[in-house]
């Protein structure tokens, strides 16, 4: 968990060996051949007899991912379809296999230029089509792993590795956005700054692994105690920050108390012992447009300081 690695290797189970395939072919003989083979290989097949129908199918929510398009078709031909599909720029790449007649070299060139990935000349045989589908599947798998890696990077860039909560950078962005939004919506924004009490003592007594377990459990309890549209993150070592959109002083006090009680409520089992831990919370409510994020954080921080100084395991609302 701590060392997340990004891999571009296609995941074993993705993409599924079953592809969603669209066949657009005006000749009933080739339509039947393609359909029969693709079904034998357990692909999900949609067969249409002209380019216009194919275009309709491609407008669906989850369009087929691999397209086998005949070059010569009434209404919209294969090349025109390629061009339209590429112009659409869907987030999920669609692999296009163009089917041309024998000796239609010029057509192949034009088709590839229009956006086809590969081509197949009639008369093609079973093994050849199968091999070309494997190529398509490989490209689609590579794309899937790229998307996966991008999502993973995006997550890692904005989240704390240990707790899975937002990290400090992401929290600052969130707070900024929330203050902007609260100004427009003319609603207050509450901020809680939470610090685990005597955390150094936990680390020193039970070891760092136990300390990590406490941090993770605190994060879990914190997340459990807030609404889905509130944001919680790890601000620093044992310090957490919570942004509560639209909360007035009463609601803020209640939420902070709920979190504090949840954290202090029961021990966590780590290093073979039950470890009790508590948290102090500094809270503040900013009126819409009243202050900057820096000022709000400063106010919450000094409220936290007060909570610490007046005995810990408590909330101070500034």
């Amino acid at each position: 968990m701590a060392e997340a690695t990004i891999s571009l290797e296609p995941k074993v189970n993705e993409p599924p060996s079953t592809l969603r395939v669209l066949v657009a072919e005006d000749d009933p003989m080739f339509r039947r051949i393609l359909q029969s083979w693709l079904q034998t290989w357990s692909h999900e097949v949609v067969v249409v007899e002209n380019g216009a129908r194919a275009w309709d199918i491609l407008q669906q929510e989850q369009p087929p991912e691999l397209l086998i398009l005949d070059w010569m078709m009434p209404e919209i031909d294969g090349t025109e379809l390629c061009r339209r599909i590429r112009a659409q720029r869907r987030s999920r790449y669609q692999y296009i296999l163009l089917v041309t007649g024998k000796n239609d070299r010029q057509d192949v060139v034009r088709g590839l230029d229009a956006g086809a990935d590969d081509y197949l000349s009639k008369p093609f045989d079973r093994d050849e089509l199968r091999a070309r589908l494997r190529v398509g599947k490989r490209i689609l798998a590579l794309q899937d792993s790229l998307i996966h890696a991008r999502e993973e990077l995006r997550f890692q860039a904005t989240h704390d590795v240990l707790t899975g909560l937002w990290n400090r950078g992401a929290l600052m962005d969130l707070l900024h956005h929330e203050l902007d939004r609260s100004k427009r919506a003319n609603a207050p924004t509450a901020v809680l700054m939470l610090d685990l009490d005597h955390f150094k003592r936990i680390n020193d007594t039970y070891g760092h692994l136990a300390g990590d377990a406490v941090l993770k459990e605190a994060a879990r309890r914190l997340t459990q105690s807030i609404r889905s549209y509130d944001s919680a993150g790890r601000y620093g070592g044992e310090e957490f920050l919570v942004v509560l959109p639209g909360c007035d002083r009463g609601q803020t006090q209640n939420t902070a108390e709920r979190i504090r009680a949840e954290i202090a409520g029961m021990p966590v089992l780590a290093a073979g012992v039950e470890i009790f831990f508590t948290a102090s919370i500094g809270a503040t409510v900013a009126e819409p447009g009243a202050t900057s994020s820096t000022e709000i954080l400063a106010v919450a921080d000094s409220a936290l300081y007060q909570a610490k100084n007046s005995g810990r395991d408590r909330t101070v609302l500034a």
Partner: protein
Amino acid sequence: MLDGHVCWDAARALERLGGDEGLFREIVQIFLHEAPKHLAGLQQALAQRDKDSIERIAHTLKGELSYLGVSGAAHHASKLEDAGRNGDLECAASIRISLEKDVEGLLQNMYRALLEKTSSLSPIQPSGAHSNG
């Protein structure tokens, strides 16, 4: 499968289909159904001097014939496609006659082959597998 001027390499076609005899019979039946329409279409297109239709129908026939392993006829279809594209209607008219002869010979061959096959293989049935079209 040799019959006069038409050479049909059915074995090669079957091989392309991965040896799937059921599918082979299906596509032969589709061809038997489609080819007369193509021939009639060609005749009409020539009568109307419609070069685009000549090119398109010849292209379709070229694909089907070469798939079925009838290379001589496929060659004629290819020439006819060129003639259509170039608007050479006189040339197209004479190629059409050869092509029609080829295809008619082939259709006879196919009927015979299907009848022969029925004695040794399971009977040919109208394909029920034309599901989601």
